[in-house]
């Protein structure tokens, strides 16, 4: 078997210095405006052959950019599976002796989503199945997942997708040693996800504000119930189709669930993105990425910031995410203001979004509702939340929630004080 590809840089037959000069020239010329490049080359380079070669390369580079040449890796992405298989279940299949599959809806982060009829209660629900291989590879995830379902069930709010229950289906035909399929029944939603909506372009201020209003309401409701989302993204934000004169409802789905499935035994989150096994959730906060156990609502606020960024600009701050996750530039580099992409964006949006995206959790808005207040022009809130916490919610993986109202001490001191208390409490 041949070893790794060290083909040797013997450079026989080539002149290394020329190659390097060509590169420098190429790079310098690229910095020039396209119409000035020919002139630039003529001034900077006296060697005809090199000038021609670099000129050609510049043209190739231009075309390569236009055509997204080599931008799709050969190893395949979610968009181009090597072999594609149909959904696991077909219409008419009955699961757990209670739910009859109506139709396949989508492949989601947790697994497949179906519409099903509850044969007991005679209503239609959404069924989200947990991918069997996740249960096999991550033995402790089910425990964690069940706890999240337990928490999620308790949150009732019009902007939070209702979770009903968890079921296990044993299928004699699977032929594997799995202990059956696990699935969750939840509210069936008709409409489209925010990611589908954003494919048609960014939202205007009115639409964006409406969406942020409802999403922050959802976040606050869940946070008050002791539930963090940990995987907030446009794919988890559902825009329910409006019927008649009713305004459209925005629903946030999968609170805590998706991330619970991917956590390893040590309580440390594994950065994995939906659909691919590898990849960082593109909306993950820095503290999550670095395996911080003490996540707070501010982590969801960060993700909210990214969603808002995309909402008003139509793009994510860094598009350079690959199918293999290995790291994210937005943690290392400063995020460019959304106004660089959308110059007409109101300054308030810019300020609020960038504050949500602060790498340091304590400098962000601590409560989702504050984000909305700030957008609506409550400038007092922007200043005050840096120093006082009106409502501070503390989270840890035991299901205890503590809500402290109107304490006039700094957020950091409060967190430190309480986390010490909780550590002692947990022992």
């Amino acid at each position, binding site marked *: *078997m041949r*070893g*790794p*590809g*060290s*083909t*040797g*840089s*013997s*450079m*026989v037959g*080539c002149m290394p210095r020329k*190659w390097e000069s060509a*590169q420098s020239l*190429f*790079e310098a010329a690229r910095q020039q405006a396209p119409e000035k490049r020919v002139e630039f080359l003529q001034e900077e380079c006296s060697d005809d052959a090199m000038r021609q070669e670099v000129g*050609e*390369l510049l043209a*190739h*580079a231009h075309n*390569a950019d236009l*055509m*997204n*040449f*080599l931008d*799709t*890796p*050969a*190893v*395949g*992405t*979610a968009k*181009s*599976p*090597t*072999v594609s*298989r149909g959904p*696991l279940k077909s219409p008419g299949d009955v699961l757990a002796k209670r739910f009859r599959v109506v139709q396949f809806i989508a492949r989601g982060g947790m697994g497949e989503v179906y519409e099903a009829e509850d044969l007991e209660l005679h209503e239609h629900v959404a069924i989200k199945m947990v*991918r069997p*291989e996740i249960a096999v*590879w*991550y033995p402790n995830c089910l425990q964690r997942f069940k706890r999240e379902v337990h928490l999620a069930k308790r949150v009732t709010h019009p902007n939070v997708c209702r979770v009903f229950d968890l079921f296990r289906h044993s299928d004699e035909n699977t032929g*594997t040693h799995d202990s059956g399929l696990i699935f969750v029944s939840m509210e069936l939603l008709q409409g489209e996800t925010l990611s589908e909506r954003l494919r048609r372009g960014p939202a205007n201020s009115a639409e964006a504000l409406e969406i942020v209003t409802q999403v922050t309401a959802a976040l606050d409701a869940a946070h008050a119930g002791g539930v963090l989302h940990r995987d907030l993204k446009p794919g988890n934000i559902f825009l329910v189709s409006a019927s008649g004169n009713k305004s459209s409802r925005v629903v946030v789905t999968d609170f805590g669930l998706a991330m619970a499935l991917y956590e*390893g035994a*040590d309580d*440390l989150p*594994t950065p994995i993105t939906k659909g*691919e*096994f*590898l990849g960082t959730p593109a909306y993950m906060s820095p503290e999550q990425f670095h*395996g911080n156990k003490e996540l707070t609502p501010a982590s969801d606020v960060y993700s909210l910031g990214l969603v808002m960024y995309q909402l008003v600009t139509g793009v994510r701050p860094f598009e*350079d995410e*690959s*199918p*293999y*996750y*290995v*790291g*994210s*530039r937005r943690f290392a580099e400063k995020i460019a203001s959304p106004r660089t992409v959308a110059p007409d964006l109101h300054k308030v949006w810019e300020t609020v979004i960038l504050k949500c995206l602060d790498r340091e959790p304590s400098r962000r808005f601590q409560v989702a509702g504050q984000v909305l207040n700030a957008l609506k022009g409550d400038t007092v809130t922007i200043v005050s939340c840096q120093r006082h916490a009106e409502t501070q919610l503390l989270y840890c993986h035991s299901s205890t929630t503590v809500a402290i109202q109107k304490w006039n001490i700094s957020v950091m001191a409060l967190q430190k004080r309480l986390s010490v208390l909780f550590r002692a409490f947990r022992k």
Partner: protein
Amino acid sequence: MEAVKGEVTLLLQQMAKGDSDAQAQLFSLVYCELRKLARNYMRRERIEHTLQPTALVHEAFLRLVGSPPVNWQNRVHFFAVTAQVMRRILVDQARGRLRKKRGGNNRAVSLDEVILCNYENPAVVLAIHECLLRLAKLDERQSRVVELRFFGGLSIEATAEVLSVSPKTVKRDWNYARAWLYGQLNGRVYAA
């Protein structure tokens, strides 16, 4: 299995320090593992999977390196090795498929096919591979950048980490190599 995992982590760390023997060993390990997993998939036909190379690589990662906590630099280096392995596997696969067709000589690859990411066409993968071999003689690092990004799907930052250079350098290499490859593939004919 546990012993192997520790060994792999150690090799990854050595590779990060520039140990080429460690890299060679890793290549063998990853290659064997991926081949084994691919065979198992074919045999068991697990219908809940779409057979994506990314899924295979993930499984290989879990088996060889293990579940978290994993140092993210180890991950990066693991996927760098994976890039080489995937290149090898894809190229072998492409050659095999072309051989099955009639002798497969001088199969012309149009630039359009490359642009359209028609990786179903084995000649496309081979054309890129062979161009990369030529590029490596001119500038090995550039060829590595393309290999990592194109066969490994690594981001700019990850590539920078693997090659121990700055992301700026990677970007420059990528831009230049891409332009060069584009020129090479434009209107050329490639033998299988």
